């Protein structure tokens, strides 16, 4: 690989990393709590509720949120 190609690759990787870091900083406030909350709830369900032998009976009187 020539020095020019190495330099181009370095520029590409640096740009990609910068974009990723900026995107993460911009979106983490929106995405992270949702994902964290979901994982917490899911783990609690799998580790505690599902092992307690509780039933899952389809409920009446609810609707899907639009």
């Amino acid at each position, binding site marked *: 690989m020539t020095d020019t190609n190495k330099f181009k690759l370095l520029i590409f990787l640096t740009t990609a990393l910068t974009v990723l870091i900026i995107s993460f900083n911009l979106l983490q406030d929106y995405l992270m709590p949702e994902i964290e909350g*979901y994982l917490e709830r899911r783990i609690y369900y799998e580790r505690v509720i599902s092992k307690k032998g*509780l*039933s899952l*009976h389809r*409920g009446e009187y609810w609707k899907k*949120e639009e």
Partner: protein
Amino acid sequence: MGKKVQCELCPTECVLEDFQIGGCSVRINKGGVLYSLVYGKPCAVVIDPIEKKPFFHVLPATTAFSIATAGCVLGCKFCQNWQISQAKPEETDNHDLMPDEVVRQALFYDCRTITYTYTEPTVFYEYMYDTARIARRYNVKNTMHTCGYIKEKPLRELSKYMDAADVDLKAFTEDFYSRICGGRLKPVLDTLAVLKGEGVWLEITNLIIPTLNDDMKKIREMCQWIVKNLGPDVPLHLSRFFPNYKLKDLPPTPLETIRDARIAAMDAGLKYVYMGNIRSDAENTYCPKCRNLLIERIGFFVKQINIAGGRCKFCGTAIAGIWS
């Protein structure tokens, strides 16, 4: 991640994300479908005198097969059963008792009624509803002790199978419901009106708590509302408060307060006003016309009944209630 769902069972109307559990602790959104976690899983199964519910005008001196699951739609700071009502179903010791088995056991133990009680039966709505439908087929009556915090549609559906309801009217101010219970008064009043309209026998319990809901003016207003909207035949149980749960710093209700409230209720036109959690002759039922003693009680024990065919044995006046 699944879709959000909105529960439409109680006026809280929780919006739940995937794997989120409602404020009642017993309803979960799993993959965009709402499930009950307590169907067939009661944490309390007890045979009680029906007077303990309290029902004073429903089959006196009989027993009630009483069941409850964990959970509640409210969070009253004075709750007498907070150990189970404020618990999650994964924290309580639960029985395996499907609806047909509840009815079979009620029949086996010679219970004339099944009562959905101790915690708030709205949270185990599907379990209660299915049990009530089977019980009706076997001529076992269905009764519930409820806070009345339920939406109209499920309540009307349930009313088809419910014979009697004892509703806790905890106070007559929105402020009390909001600060002390985490709910609202209006839906409870709506529930009372719906139950009356659907022909469900009604009794009302009002726990009088010093400094929080012992204002005689408000008690009078409440009694006037009952007479106007539900009629004078609805029995009212004025109960004495004892320090409990998050209100341990308050004293028990003074006897004079309960007596004054009873006088106010009778002045408002209510025919049957009882004092609860106090041994007195205000536990007895008297004929509203001839004033003779109809049912003598000591606590939950019935000593004598002078009602025959739903009428006073002495003067023949019809006494409102379910007597056979």
